[in-house]
C-alpha cells in the first residue's frame, strides 16, 4: 500500500454508485415537470432549456405554477432566488470539506449543487475528503437524467393535452405538499422522535402563516404578489416561533 487516498478513478466510481438511484428517481419527476410546463404554454425547447439552465426542481415547478403572459419576470426571478437560497448554507457547509479543487472547478462544479448531490457529498465527507473526481461524478449524472427526462415529458405532454382532464393539474400542488412535508420532517426529526407535540405544532406556524397570508393576498391583489407576501409572512413566523438563544433573551 503506497497510496493513502483512493485514486481519482475509485472516487469517480463511488460518486456514480451514490447518485445512480437518485438519478433514476428523478426521471418521472422531470418528465412530470416537462408535461406540466408545456400544458402551461411553454414550448418544448423552452421547457428543456429551463431544466438545463436553472437545474433546480423546486424552483422550476414553482416557476411554471406562477408563469403567465406577460411574463412576471420579477416574481419568477425572486421566487427562484428565495427557493434556492438554501444552497448558500449548503455551500458554506460543504466548502471546507473539498480537497484539490481549483477556483474554476468550484465555480463550474457548483453549478451542479442540488439537495441530492449536497447530501451525498456530506455523507462522503464523513469518512473521505470530497475530491473533484467524486464531485463531478456525483453531479453530472443527475443533470443528464433531469434534462433528457424533461424533454421526453414535454413531448409526451404536447400529445396528452389538457392536464386538468386527469386531475394532473393538481400534481403540482401534491408535489409541493410532499416537498413541504419533506422539509418539515427533516427539520423537526428530533421533535417528532421525542413526540413533543407543542413543539411540533409550533413548527407548523411558519407554513400556516405563509399559506394563509398568500391566499389572502392572492384574493385581494392577485398573482404574483401572493408568493412574496406569503414567503415573508412565513419567514417572520419562523423567526418568532423559534426559541430564542439564551443571549437573545438576555439582550
Amino acid at each position, binding site marked *: 500500500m503506497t497510496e493513502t487516498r483512493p485514486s481519482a478513478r475509485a472516487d469517480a466510481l463511488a460518486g456514480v454508485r451514490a447518485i445512480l438511484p437518485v438519478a433514476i428517481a428523478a426521471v418521472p419527476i422531470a418528465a412530470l415537470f416537462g408535461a406540466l410546463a408545456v400544458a402551461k404554454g411553454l414550448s418544448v425547447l*423552452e421547457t428543456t*432549456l429551463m431544466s438545463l439552465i436553472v437545474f433546480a426542481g423546486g424552483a422550476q415547478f414553482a416557476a411554471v405554477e406562477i408563469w403567465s403572459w406577460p411574463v412576471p419576470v420579477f416574481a419568477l426571478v425572486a421566487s427562484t432566488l428565495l427557493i434556492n437560497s*438554501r444552497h448558500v448554507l449548503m*455551500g458554506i457547509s460543504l466548502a471546507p470539506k473539498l480537497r484539490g479543487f481549483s477556483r474554476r472547478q468550484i465555480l463550474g462544479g*457548483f453549478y451542479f449543487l442540488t439537495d441530492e448531490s449536497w447530501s451525498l457529498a456530506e455523507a462522503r465527507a464523513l469518512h473521505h475528503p470530497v475530491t473533484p473526481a467524486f464531485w463531478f461524478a456525483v453531479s453530472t449524472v443527475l443533470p443528464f437524467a433531469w434534462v433528457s427526462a424533461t424533454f421526453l415529458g414535454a413531448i409526451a405532454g404536447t400529445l396528452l393535452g389538457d392536464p386538468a382532464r386527469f386531475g394532473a393539474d393538481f400534481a403540482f400542488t401534491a408535489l409541493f405538499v410532499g416537498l413541504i412535508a419533506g422539509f418539515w420532517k427533516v427539520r423537526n426529526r428530533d421533535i417528532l422522535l421525542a413526540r413533543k407535540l407543542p413543539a411540533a405544532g409550533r413548527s407548523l406556524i411558519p407554513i400556516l402563516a*405563509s399559506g394563509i397570508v398568500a391566499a389572502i393576498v392572492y384574493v385581494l391583489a392577485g398573482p404574483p404578489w401572493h408568493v412574496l407576501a406569503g414567503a415573508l*409572512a412565513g419567514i417572520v413566523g419562523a423567526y418568532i416561533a423559534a426559541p430564542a438563544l439564551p443571549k437573545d433573551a438576555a439582550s
Partner: protein
Amino acid sequence: MTVDPVTLATIIAMGLVTWLTRIAGTFLAGRLVLEGRAKAAFDAIPPVVLMAVVAPTVFATGIAETLAALVTAVAATRLPLLATILVGVVSVVILRAIV
C-alpha cells in the same frame, strides 16, 4: 420548438441567480454564522415559499382542492414523493366528482 426572447431571458436570469446561490456559500464559508432565530428563519425559506406558491390552489380554489390538499399532506408524512403525488391526483379527481 419556438423560443420567446422574454421567456429565454427570464430563464437565463433564473439560472444566473440560482448559480449565484450555489457558489455564494463557498465564498462565505467561515464568515457567516447563522444561529438561533436567524437560522430558523433562513431554514424556513424553502418550505414557506413553496407553501405560498400553492396557497391559491389549497385555500382559494374550491372545497375539493382544499380537502385533496389535506389528504395529500397526511399521505406525505408516510409515503415517498411519487406515491404522494398519485394520492393527491386520485383524491382530487374523486373529490371534484362528489363535492
